[in-house]
């Protein structure tokens, strides 16, 4: 439907102000909090804040804003706020507590995160994240989150990729679930207290902007199909990542880009859309029917060893291949970090050995993750206590027992570092529109370290947003929104729905999603090239044209209609995909999860180009060719270096 032109772009003004205080990094957050204006408690209930999304970011934000006394409206598309995609996070959450006494500190977590992000994130934000991390653990324990403990009753931690200290707190393999239930319970308490009104099974389809400010959302009630508008003094988007643009990913089926994409079309800049994280340890695809991919937590790399047969096409069963004919390629190539190298490196290494014909399992798209040595060293019971539920999940899906045969794993799309651009105060470029959690672009640069998304979501929701939103709301309430602004926004949404229903073609929305996913995986996935990206930029508009000629959506708009929901999401993915490819094409360097084949070292490692690309690419939607705004990145505390994990 959109007539945007993504084969081209023009240069806009650089982004001058990120609202970050200057001066010493260590005290910036303290000074920002002190400088932020406060809203008097009696006035808070006169101010309405909409929070879209109830994952770790949105759930914790809505609960905390409710505790502060604001009038909060909360939305999610699931039937209960407790089911947001954050629930599926397995491995853990980072925090610079240094409980393990192994030399961790706020500065080290900050340093590791900036380095892990391949020097493409904003120092002030990352430093704040590291500072706040310690409070998160305190908060969650106070709520009753049952983190793993040692026999002495203290909290247990483990190591995750990209770190040489043990700073990852976990609750068996269900960390996200337990953290989300903590946030959900806090949210439930506020719903009971009447400060938060919850709207489950409701999808945001557009943003209401009036007089230059974000003032509300147009939503569709997924049960009745009714389209309506909710107004507020500020809108917070916490709608998660857009990894499902690849169709197959580890994200929940409903994860989508609709909320942030439509806000982008209303004026919010979209930053670094091409930064995608491919997770190295997922269960390989088993067939055409595959509807999603299942992650096997990265924590498994603490004790599991990754290998492939030395010889391409070795037909032997893994246990019949003797030690000296195995290639533990991560340990060989990266002796410093071994199996714990960051995700982008582990993923590409897996692709390289599979491309060389040494992959295992169906189609040769897999590598072994072997626990034999760990079971011998620690005993089966210890291994089972650490990873039992993951082993079970693996066996249920593949019908193979990982205690007996090594797991087979392969990389899959997992997380999107890109998202709506926000400043230090989490404000997007539309005044009054805040963006938190995976939906924003902020803290992870070009590659997110394991266990840092949960940390960021909760930092944003419990601590950062509640501390800075008052500075904006202190100017409110912002007065009534003219009915025409609401009608216009609703009309646009109704027309969009009618257009999807009117096509009445001969292909399902799912079939388009599958095709788009394959195209993106091939041309804008683990490796990207100019040629491939140009091809993608030709093919995506064609596919989108075909979608709008041939998609078939049954039923009507004024009823529960899951086909209509899916078609709307696929339509948005078909637009976002192009911006991702354009962003990937313009960034001719390799960095983090973005690997351009043209920019690599002799050993095949990513080669950054700091002189040309040390910036955040923030894209403006124009309807025609997008406009690129650059936010230059400055490093004062960590010197950009070649990221080495050898």
């Amino acid at each position, binding site marked *: 439907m959109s007539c945007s032109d993504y084969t081209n772009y023009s240069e806009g003004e650089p982004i001058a102000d990120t609202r970050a205080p200057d001066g010493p990094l260590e005290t910036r957050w303290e000074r920002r909090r002190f400088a932020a204006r406060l809203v008097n408690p009696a006035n808070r209930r006169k101010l309405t804040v909409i929070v879209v999304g109830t994952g770790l970011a949105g759930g914790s934000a809505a609960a905390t804003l409710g505790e502060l006394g604001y009038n909060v409206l909360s939305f999610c598309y699931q039937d*209960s706020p*407790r*089911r947001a*995609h954050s629930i599926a996070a397995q491995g853990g959450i980072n925090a610079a507590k240094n409980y393990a006494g192994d030399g961790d500190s706020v500065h080290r977590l900050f340093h590791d995160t900036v380095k892990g992000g391949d020097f493409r994130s904003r120092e002030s934000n990352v430093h704040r994240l590291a500072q706040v991390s310690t409070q998160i653990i305190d908060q969650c324990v*106070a709520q009753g989150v049952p983190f793993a403990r040692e026999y002495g009753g203290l909290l247990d931690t483990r190591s995750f990729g990209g770190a040489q200290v043990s700073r990852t707190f976990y609750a068996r393999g269900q960390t996200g679930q337990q953290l989300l239930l903590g946030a959900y319970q806090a949210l439930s308490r506020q719903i009971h207290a009447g400060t938060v009104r919850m709207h489950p099974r409701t999808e945001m389809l557009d943003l209401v902007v009036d007089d230059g400010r974000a003032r509300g959302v147009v939503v569709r009630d997924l049960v009745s199909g009714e389209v309506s508008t909710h107004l507020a003094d500020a809108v917070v988007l916490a709608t998660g990542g857009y990894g499902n643009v690849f169709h197959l990913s580890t994200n929940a089926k409903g994860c989508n880009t609709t909320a942030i994409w439509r806000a982008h079309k209303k004026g919010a800049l979209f930053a670094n859309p091409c930064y995608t994280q491919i997770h190295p340890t997922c269960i390989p695809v088993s067939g055409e029917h595959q509807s999603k991919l299942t992650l096997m937590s990265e924590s498994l790399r603490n004790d599991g060893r990754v290998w492939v047969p030395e010889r391409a096409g070795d037909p032997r069963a893994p246990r019949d291949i003797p030690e000296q004919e195995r290639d533990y390629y991560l340990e060989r190539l990266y002796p410093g970090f071994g199996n714990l190298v960051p995700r982008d490196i582990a993923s590409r290494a897996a692709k390289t050995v599979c491309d060389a014909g040494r992959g295992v399992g169906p189609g040769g798209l897999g590598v072994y993750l072997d626990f034999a040595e760990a079971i011998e060293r620690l005993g089966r019971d210890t291994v089972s206590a650490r990873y039992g539920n993951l082993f079970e999940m693996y066996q249920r899906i593949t019908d193979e027992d990982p205690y007996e045969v090594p797991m087979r794993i392969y990389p899959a799309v997992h997380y999107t570092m890109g998202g709506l651009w926000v400043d230090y105060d989490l404000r997007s470029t539309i005044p009054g529109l805040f963006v938190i959690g995976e939906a924003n672009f902020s803290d992870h640069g070009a590659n997110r370290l394991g266990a840092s998304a949960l940390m960021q979501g909760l930092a944003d929701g419990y601590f950062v947003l509640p501390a800075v939103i008052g500075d904006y709301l202190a100017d409110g309430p912002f007065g009534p929104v003219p009915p025409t602004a609401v009608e216009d926004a609703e009309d646009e949404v109704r027309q969009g729905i009618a257009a999807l229903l009117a096509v009445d073609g001969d292909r399902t929305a799912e079939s388009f999603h599958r095709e788009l996913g394959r195209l993106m995986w091939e041309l804008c996935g683990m490796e990207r090239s100019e040629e491939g990206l140009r091809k993608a930029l030709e093919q995506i508009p064609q596919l989108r044209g075909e979608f709008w000629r041939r998609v078939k959506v*049954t039923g009507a708009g004024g009823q529960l209609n899951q086909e209509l929901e899916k078609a709307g999401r696929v339509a948005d993915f078909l637009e976002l995909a192009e911006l991702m490819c354009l962003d990937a094409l313009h960034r001719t360097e390799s960095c983090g999860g973005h690997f351009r084949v043209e920019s690599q070292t002799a050993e095949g490692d990513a080669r950054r180009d700091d002189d040309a690309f040390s910036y955040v690419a923030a894209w403006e939607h124009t309807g025609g060719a997008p406009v690129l705004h650059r936010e230059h990145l400055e490093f004062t505390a960590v010197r950009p270096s070649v990221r080495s994990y050898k």
Partner: protein
Amino acid sequence: MRYTLRVWRQRGPEESGGLVDYDVDGISPDMSFLEMLDVLNERLVLDGEEPVAFDHDCREGICGMCGLMIDGVAHGPERATTTCQLHMRHFDPAEPIVVEPWRAAPFPVVRDLMVDRSALDRIVEAGGYISAPAGAAPDAHAVPIPKADADAAFTAAACIGCGACVAACPNGSPMLFTAAKATHLGLLPQGQPERLSRAEDMLTAQDDLGFGGCTQTGECTLVCPKGIPLETIATLNHDVLTAALRGR
């Protein structure tokens, strides 16, 4: 492989429903039950029919959104397994598979296989939390918690809120769900101050919402995908009794 399905179709809560037979072809043993329904739905759409509505999201057995009665058993024949983690290798193509929604008075059918389980959220809202506003927490190591207690709390905390226990219970009681929450929080030192009021408030909400009472039939634990133990119910009952004795 080819299967015959008998699927409950119902347009809305007020309308009557019934079982409709469908044949689905091209099913592989590695497909999940929901992927099999995806195959059916894509075909229905292409035939111009409305697909079968069902809830799902994570497809990893953790969000608690999916849940179907399969041949009369909540989440189907495999123990400790959610519907999304159930694979077709467990079904014999020679036998028709009957697929129905959860059935319980407080879970009205929304459409087809989808039900409204928001009553479970109301139970948690009534008291299923520890009051700990953000920003005021003491250091996480201030109170060590014996590993055994932490582990037991975790076991109860694993409930995914799917509602299978209610669907399986002859009385339509959510007791296992409520007890799981009461036990999780009640076993932790942080949960002590509100322990008795929490148990009582959740139980009162449960009754007010029209759920049935618990007569300890134990059907719930048989279908619970997370293996929530029946003893949690004893813990809850003990707390409620103590609250009554203290004249709360």
